[in-house]
């Protein structure tokens, strides 16, 4: 039994009758609340009262029941808004107004549908914990660990390969394979030295999916673990995931979170690394655990184990869409297999390095998900349960947000520039309906997403992507065959601070338009010919857009990456061995494969280029790494490692990446969401970037 049952299984007839009756009463009540029209004053009082009730309920921070109640309230209020919108605000006059008004309405309905889906997907995250393996390792199954690579440098991939070798599993049942689509000699030599299987194929058909499928034909393991070439697994990866595979013979997939030890472009350029949850935290922290409840966790391409027989039954990894991973999971679900998500980070990788790489990767995902939506729509076709259909659909239609977001960014401009009405109601009334809809959504979402996503940051992330995914997703909706797989590059270095004007162009254009619109709006107020309340709302909306767009522009100001190898803040005990034969007990402050910053008990009086050895203690063995002092002041020494032997490199990789608890406390410094503060932070980041951009020399990426 892999997923918990979705409701009580033993329920007497009387019990069912009771539930049905209560639901009917609730439904009637909700319908009344939704459709009864109220005047301005009554609506204001009603809206304010309900919101105050919600705020009071929200004080019970830990109660899931309260969360449910807030979801119900939010959905009721939003449904009231949409109903009112559909029934009372569409009496527009000119063709232009009707057209534009309908476009805006469609965008709002999209947002409303996404709200429903979103709540459903995340309202009860299943926090699945690892299940222990049987006591006797001789009963454990064989696993192949596959690490496909194409053009990533050996410097990046070798660490992953070494970390995979360090996974705790009976050595005769573990095979680590490097699948090199680049067919490079240095990779072959490294693998031979390290005891790793080296696999190549004569062509690169179907990119990563083809690479894996080709290797699967040669491997014999009952299970397959797949890692991106820069995702380093911890030693506990298999022991914490395979338990579920053994417990449920129909389990085809155990997925684990993608964790990143380097900052993504938002975190790097805003310097919010580890303080504010990053963009992926929501997906792996809340969405996938939510999916897990409905048995619809999907494969994310890395940090997962799959059952070979399940993969073979669907013909290997899917090759006809660009997000082959999600599609493969969908096909396995259709065949009746189960999937699960173990909510413990057991691998760590590099986030996308620059905004353009980030956007490129997301475009691929967006295009791919829409391709799947078109060619293998989860709402139709056999084999899926209703909840699975809804979960997959939710994940996919999320990527259609390009057009609605663009509409929202342009809507106020229509009124401010051209006085075209998109609502035919007094502005004040609009506010009394729309504000509760927005506020409840913010409140409830913030409560559910507390440490996984801070309010309004979602807006920034989506604003950044909106204009770029618009075209690919629309094309994919029309004809899924358009588009080819473009690999996200890993390991590229941002050499200098620079402003990526090329990628920021759409935001700059929209920002400018909104700024001009605000100016025009203010001028109109002075003219006195247009109703001030309508102007005020649109000005406020345009201001909101300006804030979001300036934050998006700010992200494009790439902070220089100072070193090529990522440093991790990590405290492990080490021993320094000095020239002269003395040893000093010390602790690392941060550590990378290239060197370390070490905290010593006293000032050691070392000089630049002094030779020392740094001893690491891994699994009861001591590894003495030769190093040169780069800098020493007070109690801190910065050393750079000399050329490492394979054993030494392996020891460092294990120290940094392999410990079972390596990433468990990563988010401890993250602060929980407070929407108001979040709002101010975004304004701050948006505004401070503008002078930097104006004073600096904006030049495009060469």
């Amino acid at each position, binding site marked *: 039994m892999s997923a918990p049952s979705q409701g009580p299984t033993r329920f007497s007839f009387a019990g069912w009758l009771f539930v049905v009756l209560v639901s009917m009463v609730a439904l009637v009540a909700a319908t009344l609340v939704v459709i009864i029209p109220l005047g301005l004053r009554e609506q204001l009082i009603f809206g304010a009262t309900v919101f105050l009730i919600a705020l009071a309920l929200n004080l019970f921070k830990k109660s899931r029941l309260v969360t449910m109640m807030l979801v119900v309230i939010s959905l009721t209020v939003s449904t009231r808004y949409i109903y009112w919108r559909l029934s009372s605000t569409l009496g527009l006059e000119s063709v232009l107004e009707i057209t534009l008004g309908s476009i805006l309405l469609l965008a709002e309905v999209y947002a409303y549908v996404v709200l429903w889906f979103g709540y459903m997907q995340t309202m009860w995250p299943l926090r699945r914990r690892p299940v222990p393996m049987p006591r006797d390792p001789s009963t454990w199954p064989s696993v192949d660990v596959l690490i496909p690579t194409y053009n990533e440098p050996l410097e990046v991939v070798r660490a992953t390969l070494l970390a995979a070798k360090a996974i705790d599993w009976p050595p005769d049942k573990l095979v680590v394979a490097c699948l090199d689509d680049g067919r490079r000699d240095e990779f072959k030599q490294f693998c031979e030295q390290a005891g790793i299987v080296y696999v190549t194929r004569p062509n690169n058909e179907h990119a990563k999916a083809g690479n894996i499928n080709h290797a699967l034909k040669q491997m014999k393991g009952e299970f397959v673990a797949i890692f991106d070439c820069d995702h380093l697994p911890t030693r506990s990866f298999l022991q914490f995931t395979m338990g579920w595979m053994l417990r449920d013979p129909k389990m085809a997939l155990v997925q684990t979170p993608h964790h990143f030890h380097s900052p993504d472009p938002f975190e790097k350029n805003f310097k919010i690394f580890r303080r504010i949850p990053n963009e992926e935290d929501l997906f792996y922290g809340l969405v996938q655990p939510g999916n897990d409840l409905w048995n619809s966790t999907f494969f994310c391409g890395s940090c997962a184990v799959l059952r070979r027989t399940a993969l073979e039954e669907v013909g290997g990894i899917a090759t006809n869409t660009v997000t082959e991973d999600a599609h493969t999971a969908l096909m396995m679900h259709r065949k009746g297999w189960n999937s699960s998500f173990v909510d413990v980070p057991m691998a760590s990788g590099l986030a996308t390095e620059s905004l353009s790489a980030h956007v490129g990767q997301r475009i691929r995902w967006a295009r791919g998900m829409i391709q799947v939506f078109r060619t293998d729509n989860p709402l139709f076709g056999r084999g899926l349960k209703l909840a699975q259909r809804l979960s997959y659909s939710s994940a996919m239609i999320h990527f259609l947000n390009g057009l609605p977001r663009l509409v929202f960014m342009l809507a106020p401009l229509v009124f401010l520039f051209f006085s075209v009405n998109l609502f035919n109601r007094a502005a004040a009334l609009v506010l009394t309906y729309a504000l509760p809809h927005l506020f409840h959504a913010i409140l409830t979402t913030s409560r559910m997403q507390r440490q996984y996503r801070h309010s309004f940051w979602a807006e920034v992330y989506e604003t950044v992507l909106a204009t770029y995914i618009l075209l690919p997703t629309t094309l994919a909706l029309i004809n899924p065959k358009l588009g080819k797989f473009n690999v996200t590059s890993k390991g590229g270095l941002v050499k200098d601070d620079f402003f990526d004007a090329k990628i920021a162009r759409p935001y700059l254009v929209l920002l400018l338009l909104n700024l001009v619109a605000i100016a025009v709006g203010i001028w109109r107020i002075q003219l006195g010919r247009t109703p001030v309340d309508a102007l005020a709302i649109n000005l406020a909306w345009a201001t909101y857009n300006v804030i979001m767009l300036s934050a998006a522009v700010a992200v494009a100001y790439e902070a220089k990456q100072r070193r090529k190898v990522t440093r991790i803040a990590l405290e492990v005990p080490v021993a320094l061995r000095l020239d*002269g*034969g*003395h*040893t000093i*007990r010390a602790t690392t402050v941060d550590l990378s494969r290239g060197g370390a910053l070490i905290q010593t008990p*006293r000032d050691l009086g070392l000089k630049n280029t002094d030779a020392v*050895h740094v001893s690491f203690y891994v699994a009861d*063995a001591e*590894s003495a790494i*030769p190093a040169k002092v780069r800098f020493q002041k007070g109690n801190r020494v910065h050393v750079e490692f000399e050329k490492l032997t394979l054993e030494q490199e392996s020891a460092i990789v294990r120290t940094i990446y392999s410990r079972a608890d390596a990433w468990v406390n990563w988010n401890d410094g993250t602060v929980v969401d407070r929407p108001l503060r979040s709002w101010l932070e975004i304004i701050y980041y948006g505004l401070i970037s503008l002078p930097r951009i104006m004073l600096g020399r904006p030049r495009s990426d060469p």
Partner: protein
Amino acid sequence: MKTVVLFSVKGGTGRTSVACNLGAELTQQGRRCTVVDTDPQNALGLHLGMSVGERFGVARHDLTSHDIARHQRGLTKVSYLPFGQCSFEELLEFERQAVENYAWLDERVHRLLPPGTEIALIDLPAGIRGWTYHSLSGADLVLVVLHADAASYATIPATEEMLGRCGARHVGYLVNQMDARMPLSVDVRGAMSGIVSKSLLPFTIPNDEAMREAFAQQKTVQEHAPDSQAAFAFGELADWVQATLRGE
């Protein structure tokens, strides 16, 4: 009272300094501990402040309670019992008694230990003698001190046989003066882990110049270089010894 015996087949492995620094660490942690020297070299006390030429010790047969009390008063940091200066004839007599009488040395030591001693660390001389078996078989814990080199590795089978024969309750192999910069040392320790894996201690005492300097100044390494990895390692050793004696 628990007895810990430090033993090695090969000489020069640093057994005596391990005994003294371990005794110092245990004393610092509040255990009432006495280090006993059964090696005619009579060098153990030098680590702990004894003056060269001190005559009091285990080997003397003419000790009065006054002598014993005077010795106790003279202890400055760690409680220890020297072997003592004796003549050649006295030495022969000592060895004869120790070999012929199973419990003779044991009783002698007990008589001289300060009352209330919780842990006695008995430093045996290197090699296998007539009375080694007696000393080992009475021990709660045998700590075999060796180097990570081929010569020490070669002594392991003989050591295992000896230990098997005398039925010591707990055994630990401690690698001393470990220099992890030397690939050979790392390899040999790995090989040792293969043949005595259950008894090989998971940490080592590093080869630290501070230990030699400490001895030259008649100090313990904790006093002389408290920041060193060596001092830290003795802390680990003391913890391990106490846990093992408690039966964990």
